[in-house]
C-alpha cells in the first residue's frame, strides 16, 4: 500500500482503500441517530462540545460489527493512529482506552486523505505559532525540526512568521472553547503526521508502487495481446462449480488427520511441547514410518513420489516387477528439467544412452510416435526436450504400476507395521521447559573432518552444527 506523492486527487484515494473505508466508518459513527452519543466534556475550566468516551467508541464498534472487545479496541485504536479520532486529556498519547477517557472526531479538514502529504510550510507555520505564543513551548524534537526548517526554507521565512502571527491574531478573536478545539485538532494532526522520534509512524507506507520505473507500456500491442488472451479465455472449457467445489470438501476431509494445526500430530507438535520426536519419527531416514505417512501415499501418485521414502519403496516394488527403469527415467528427466542449463546437453545424452537408445540397458517403453518426436528433438537438446516422453512414462506408472503397488504385499505389509506414535504425556512439572535441541544444518560444511570432533552438542548459542 503506498500513497502516490505526485498527486493528491482521486488517484491517491484509489491507492488507499483503507482510508476510504475508515472514513465511511467515521461518518457512520457520527450519524445523529445510529452513531455515538456525543456530549460535552469539561477540560480544565472550558467545556468542549461533541466529545465521547473510549467506552462509547468500543461499544459502538462491538454492536455495529458483532466483534469482540479486543477486536473493537483494536479497530478503534486504528482510528486514533490514523488521526481520525484524537484524545482530549493526553493528546500525545495516541492510544484508545476503553474507559471514560475523552475523545473527539477530527475535522475532515485534517483527514489524512484530504491533506497528504503534510506540507513543510504548514508545519513551519504551526511550529512558529507555538514558538511565538509561548517561549519554550516547543519540545526537543520540535525545536530540532523548527531549526532544520528554518535552514531549509529560509527564503520564505518572512512569510512563515507573518502567517503564524496572522493565524494567532485571528484565533484570539474566537471564543475560548472554539480556540481550544481548533488547537486540539491542529495538534492532533501534527502528532500523526510528524510523530515524535521513537513513536510509530502511521504514515510510513513502504516503497512506492506504480512509479516511472514500471516500464509496462499500455500501448496498442499490450491491448492487442490482452484481446487475444481474452478471446482464447472465452473459448475455454469450464467445469461446473458444483463439481469443482465438491473436490475441496473431499480434499479437506481426506487431509484433515494429517493437518497438525487442525487435528494435532502425534506424539506432539514440537512447537508446542518443545519435543522433537515428531520430526525424528517423520524424517527421511527413519527405520519404520508412521501409519499416517504410509496412508498418505495412497491419496495420489504425487504424494508417493514427493516422499523420498515412498519413492524408495515404490522403486523396490518396480524392481520386483522389472519396470524400475520407468521411475529412474522419470527422475532423470526431472533432473534435466530443473537442472543447470549448461549441463543439459550432457544430461540429455546420458538419458538417451541409458533409456532411449536401441538396446539401452534400461530401455523405457514409449509409444512409437512419442519416441520418434523425442529422438528428433534430441538433435537439438533443450530443457523440455524430454517432456513428452517423461509425461508418457509418468502416466504409465500412475495408471498401472501405482494402483498395483497399493494392492501389493509390500505396501500392505509396511502399512501394517507402520507406527502410530503414542501421545507425549504433558510434563508433570509444567514449569520445567524441555531443552530445545539444535539440529545439523543442511548448509554445506566447509570444516574438515577433524573439526567435526570439536562440534558442540545441544542448544548452544554458537550456531555451529551439532551432532544429535
Amino acid at each position, binding site marked *: 500500500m503506498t500513497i502516490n506523492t505526485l498527486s493528491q486527487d482521486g488517484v491517491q484515494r484509489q491507492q488507499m482503500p483503507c482510508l476510504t473505508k475508515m472514513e465511511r466508518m467515521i461518518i457512520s459513527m457520527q450519524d445523529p441517530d445510529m452513531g455515538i452519543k456525543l456530549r460535552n466534556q469539561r477540560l480544565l475550566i472550558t467545556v468542549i462540545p461533541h466529545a465521547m468516551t473510549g467506552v462509547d467508541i468500543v461499544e459502538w464498534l462491538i454492536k455495529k460489527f458483532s466483534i469482540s472487545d479486543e477486536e473493537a479496541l483494536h479497530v478503534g485504536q486504528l482510528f486514533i493512529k490514523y488521526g481520525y479520532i484524537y484524545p482530549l486529556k493526553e493528546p500525545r498519547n495516541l492510544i484508545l482506552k476503553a474507559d471514560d477517557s475523552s475523545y473527539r472526531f477530527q475535522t475532515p479538514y485534517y483527514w489524512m486523505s484530504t491533506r497528504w502529504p503534510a506540507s513543510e510550510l504548514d508545519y513551519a507555520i504551526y511550529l512558529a505559532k507555538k514558538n511565538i505564543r509561548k517561549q519554550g513551548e516547543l519540545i526537543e524534537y520540535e525545536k530540532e525540526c523548527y531549526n532544520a526548517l528554518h535552514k531549509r526554507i529560509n527564503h520564505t521565512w518572512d512569510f512563515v512568521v507573518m502567517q503564524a502571527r496572522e493565524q494567532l491574531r485571528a484565533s484570539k478573536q474566537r471564543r475560548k472553547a472554539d480556540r481550544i478545539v481548533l488547537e486540539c485538532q491542529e495538534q492532533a494532526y501534527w502528532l500523526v503526521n510528524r510523530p515524535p522520534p521513537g513513536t510509530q509512524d502511521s504514515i510510513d507506507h513502504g516503497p512506492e508502487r506504480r512509479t516511472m520505473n514500471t516500464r509496462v507500456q499500455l500501448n496498442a500491442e499490450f491491448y492487442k495481446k490482452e484481446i487475444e488472451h481474452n478471446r482464447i*479465455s472465452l473459448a*475455454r472449457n*469450464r467445469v461446473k462449480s458444483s463439481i469443482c*467445489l465438491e473436490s475441496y470438501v473431499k480434499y*479437506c476431509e481426506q487431509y484433515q488427520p494429517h493437518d*497438525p494445526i487442525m487435528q494435532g500430530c502425534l506424539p506432539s507438535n514440537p*512447537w508446542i511441547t518443545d519435543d522433537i520426536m515428531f*520430526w525424528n519419527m517423520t524424517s527421511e531416514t527413519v527405520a519404520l514410518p508412521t501409519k499416517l505417512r504410509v496412508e498418505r501415499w495412497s491419496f495420489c501418485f504425487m504424494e508417493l513420489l514427493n516422499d523420498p521414502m515412498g519413492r524408495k519403496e515404490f522403486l523396490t516394488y518396480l524392481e520386483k516387477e522389472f519396470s524400475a527403469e520407468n521411475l529412474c527415467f522419470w527422475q532423470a528427466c526431472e533432473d534435466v528439467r530443473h537442472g543447470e542449463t549448461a549441463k543439459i546437453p550432457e544430461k540429455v545424452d546420458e538419458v538417451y544412452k541409458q533409456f532411449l537408445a536401441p538396446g539401452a540397458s534400461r530401455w523405457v517403453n514409449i509409444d512409437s510416435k512419442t519416441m520418434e518426436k523425442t529422438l528428433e528433438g534430441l538433435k537439438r537438446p533443450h530443457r523440455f526436450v524430454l*517432456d513428452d516422453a517423461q509425461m508418457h512414462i509418468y502416466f504409465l506408472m500412475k495408471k498401472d504400476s501405482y494402483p498395483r503397488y497399493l494392492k501389493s504385499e509390500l505396501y500392505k505389509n509396511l502399512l501394517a507395521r507402520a507406527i502410530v506414535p503414542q501421545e507425549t504425556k504433558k510434563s508433570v512439572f509444567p514449569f520445567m521447559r524441555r531443552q530445545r535441541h539444535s539440529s545439523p544444518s543442511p548448509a554445506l560444511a566447509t*570444516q574438515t573432518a577433524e573439526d567435526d570432533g570439536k562440534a558442540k552438542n545441544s542448544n548452544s548459542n554458537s550456531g555451529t552444527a551439532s551432532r544429535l
Partner: protein
Amino acid sequence: MEMAAQPSDTLATLKTESETLKTKLEEERAKLHDVELHQVAEKTEALGQFIMKTRRTLKGHGNKVLCLDWCKDKRRIVSSSQDGKVIVWDAFTTNKEHAVTMPCTWVMACAYAPSGCAVACGGLDNKCSVYPLSLDKNENLAAKKKSVAMHTNYLSACCFTNSDMQILTSSGDGTCALWDVESGQMLQSFHGHAADVLCLDLAPSETGNTFVSGGCDKKSCVWDMRTGQCVQSFETHESDINSVRYYPSGDAFASGSDDATCRLYDLRADREVAIYSKESIIFGASSVDFSLSGRLLFGGYNDYTINVWDVLKGTRVSILFGHENRVSTLRISPDGTAFCSGSWDHTLRVWA
C-alpha cells in the same frame, strides 16, 4: 480497411474492445456457477474453538521484516528486512545461524533453496542474488554471492523451482522471469501485467509447469513456464494484490489484497469462488497461506492482525493479535505444524 484518424483513437478502441471482452468473459464464467462453496460445505462439520499462540519470537532484525521463507527441514527460516539484513534462523531454538547484509535497503524478497544450502534475496537493488550458506564462521557469505536476476525495478518476490538451479522472480517492472542460477541467464520472461507484479507462487501440480502471479493492476495471472504465455487471468479484486498462494491440491489459489479481502479462484471452474471478508476488516491483506489440508486460510494484515478463515464455510475462525505493526509476510511450515509471521515491528513469530 479501417482508417485510423489518430493513433489515440485506435488505442482507445482497442482498450474498449478489451474491456468488452473482459465483461463477456465474466458473464461466461458466471454461467456455470451453479452453487456457492459454503453451500456445498454445509454438511461439513463446523470448526470448534480455535487456539493458536505465539510459540517462538525471533528477535534480531533492527528494522521492518519484509519477507520470510521456510527451509525444507521444517525448522529453519530465512528472513529479510528493510535495513538490508538477511538472517537465517533455527526457529526452533531461535538461534541465528547466518547473517548477510545486502548492499541495498528494502529486501522485499527472500527464499530458501530446496537443498537448504543457499538463500536467494533481493529488493530495491532490482536484482535477485543467491548466497551459498557456509558453516565456516570466518567466511564472509557476501564473498560467494551470485547475482542471478536483473530487473528494471524492485524485486518483489522470488522462489526456487524444484531445484537449486532455477529461480522465478517477480518485479515492480511489471514482469516475472525464470532464471538459470549458474549462468544468470534468463530462461523465460512473462509479460502481461499492466503494473508492478507483487507476488508469485509455484503450482504443486503433477507436471509442475505453471505458477500464479498477482499485481498492482488488480489482476492475478496463471502462467505456463515453458511458453511464457498467460493461460488464465482473473480481475475481481478492487485493489493491489499483495499475495497469492495455491490451494494444496493445486486446483485453486487464494489471493490477498489491499481491498481488505482474500479471494479463492478455482482453475477448472475458471472463476472466483469465494470471498473472505468482514466489515470490520479495513486494512489490506499482505500475505496469505493455507494450512496443510487447505481447510484454513491464514491472512496477515496491515492492521497488525492475523485473521484465520474457514476456507469451505467462508467464515472467520479466529483473529490473532500480537504484532505491534503491519504483518508483512506469512508462511506455513513445510509439514504444517506451525506458521510464521513477519512484521514491521522487527520480529517474527511462530504460531502453533
